[in-house]
């Protein structure tokens, strides 16, 4: 990262410094932190920042992944590379297991994305995690724009947006009662473009599905979805081969891709710079249901 000669930091260097400060503060003040790792670009940037925060020591907390059973194989592969290289402990909480043990109920109508919430809260409680780092950014969505860096969750894992603690300067309040936990958002002030610039500047390894590739897809609700055994086709839908890339990665039954020729980080940055639709709006079925979809899921304890 470049440092200006006149004691000015570039905005990326300043964001990095802020995030590193947050990681260290949490590691110092919480008994059992965990990093929620989805394999997506934001959580990979979190891994990189955590690596920097504690170097040359190892990251002093495990990483937690919620396995929906519907994850992209490319994403799991990248996850394993990162976990091996950093030598961190990986905790996997599987939605399948949570269904099998009755922690969550698969009624056939609820998406895997929604079932993740129960699985996640169960894992946090089982392992006794007191702080969970998430890759949420305030530029993503309106409800997130008002969320704190330290975001308090009650006994039930719920977020109460009207009752958030004031957050001043860089003085974070990590007080908890038994059974409560804190969600920590070290990327709060990053934008989608910042994430990409950082991935480029730091040459960070991310899953290749973020770059343009050939894929068998079908059109549903104006979004392109990947062909998959988990994604049964409906009447009238047909498979086509297109050149696409993903702007977000998640449950593959809900995460659409966009047509794109962007096969390098530079090309992706150019594409985002002129994009007219937010990444969640473009490719996330889960945020489309209502104006307050994200707020509702967050209240329940979603990421």
């Amino acid at each position, binding site marked *: 990262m470049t440092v200006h000669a006149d004691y000015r930091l570039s905005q990326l260097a300043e964001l990095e410094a802020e995030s590193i400060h947050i990681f260290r503060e949490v590691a110092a003040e919480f008994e059992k932190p965990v990093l929620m790792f989805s394999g997506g670009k934001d959580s990979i940037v979190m891994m990189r920042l955590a690596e920097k925060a504690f170097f040359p020591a190892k990251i002093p907390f495990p990483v937690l992944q919620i396995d929906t059973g519907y994850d992209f194989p490319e994403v799991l592969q990248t996850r394993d590379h990162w976990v091996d290289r950093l030598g961190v402990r990986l905790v996997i909480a599987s939605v399948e297991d949570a269904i099998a043990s009755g922690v969550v109920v698969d009624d056939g109508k609820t998406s895997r994305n929604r079932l993740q919430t129960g699985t996640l809260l169960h894992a946090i409680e089982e392992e006794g995690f007191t702080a969970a780092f998430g890759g949420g950014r305030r530029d993503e969505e309106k*409800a997130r724009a008002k969320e704190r860096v330290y975001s308090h969750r009650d006994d039930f894992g719920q977020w109460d947006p009207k009752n958030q603690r*004031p957050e001043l300067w860089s003085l974070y309040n990590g007080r908890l009662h038994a059974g409560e936990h804190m969600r920590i958002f070290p990327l709060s002030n990053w934008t989608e473009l910042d994430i990409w610039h950082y991935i480029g500047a730091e040459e960070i390894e991310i899953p290749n599905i973020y770059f343009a590739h050939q894929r068998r897809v079908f059109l549903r609700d104006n979004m392109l979805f990947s062909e998959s055994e988990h994604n049964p086709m409906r009447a009238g839908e047909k498979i086509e081969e297109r050149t696409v890339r993903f702007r977000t990665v998640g449950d593959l039954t809900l995460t659409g891709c966009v047509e794109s020729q962007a096969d390098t980080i530079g090309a992706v940055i150019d594409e985002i710079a002129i994009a007219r639709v937010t990444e969640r709006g473009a490719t996330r079925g889960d945020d489309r249901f209502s104006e307050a979809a994200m707020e509702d899921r967050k209240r329940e304890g979603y990421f």
Partner: protein
Amino acid sequence: MAGPAMDLLRFATAGSVDDGKSTLIGRLLLDSKSIFEDQLEAVESTSRSRGYDYTDLALLTDGLRSEREQGITIDVAYRYFATPRRKFIIADTPGHVQYTRNMVTGASTADLGLVLVDARQGLTEQSRRHAVILSLLRVPHLVLCVNKMDLVDYAEDKFDEIHAEFTSFATKLAIPDLTIVPISALKGDNVVTRSAHMDWYSGPSLLHHLENVHVASDRDLVDTRFPVQYVVRPKSDEYHDYRGYAGRVAGGVLKPGDEVLVLPSGMTSKISEIDLFDKQLDEAFPPMSVTVRLEDDVDVSRGDMICRPQNAPQPSQDIDAMICWMSSTPLRPRQKLSIKHTTRAARTMIKDVQYRLDVNSLHRDLETKELGLNEIGRVQLRTTSPLLCDPYEKNRTTGSFILIDEATGVTVGAGMINSSS
């Protein structure tokens, strides 16, 4: 767009729906192409369904359901935009009296504060209050936007009147840099480009000012302050003897070879290396996060402060501070609270409420001995262990603290240190 080399400006806006703050923010986001089609469409459709005949850009920032239902902004919302010169973080705070705590929160991290007034109304109690809070929080740059100039026929004398009134009011406040811009957020005059309607105004457009205001020199580059956050001890074969002190530089410039004093122990040593990940730096300055190594094996832990032998904060248990109270249960003498200052935590007792400050008139009420929700006052505290602090006017990091209710765990107060003894 948001290139890696550009710098960052954080600014706080305050105002109510009536003075066009949302329109102004909406315009900055729209004109810098930071609003996406799906966001704009959502706002347009909500505006239509509510029967408005205009697109209510306030809906862009009113993120929570209760805010949309009540049509008011309750909480601080953070918005982001970038021009080729700079990235901007806006802390958008509601202007109502009862939300002083949100304005204080938004202002606490701001390099610049933006206050709006309606050209037809001139200065109001609310705009004065906003300026007072920004000056209490030592936001180094203030911009007063005289908005709705289109509704007073772009009249120079109207602007001059408000200009004179505000300038005279501002002399009573700590505002190192004041800029006053006549604008029309609705019509776009002097927002992004200079207006053709106001030849008599020779200053910059608002955006030009935001892009060029110099903020790097606002940080203290003289008085070295490095609160230790975390001790890095790898305990691996490769880094067997590594012992690094991680933290964020709060003041001054640190260099390898510098003689340093560690507080509160009072031990001295020299900086051997400054690490940022796998690189060794020639220097570190605010607000960098680095890891400092020392030549000698001295005992340093979280909460300690690395500074210079001839330039150190005074460890103190008796603190005199301005406090903004954020709880509905009033602050009273003898009350006990937790305090967090830099990386140090302690307990504190309120010794005295010296006065309550009326943020509209600057009147000091010496009779009241308590502070209610959203009230600001001067308070004396005693802490259980010494804090390593500076006056807030010298350093916003080592001069600030938060107060935490010990029973609920909630942040109930924000403090700015006047002096310690």
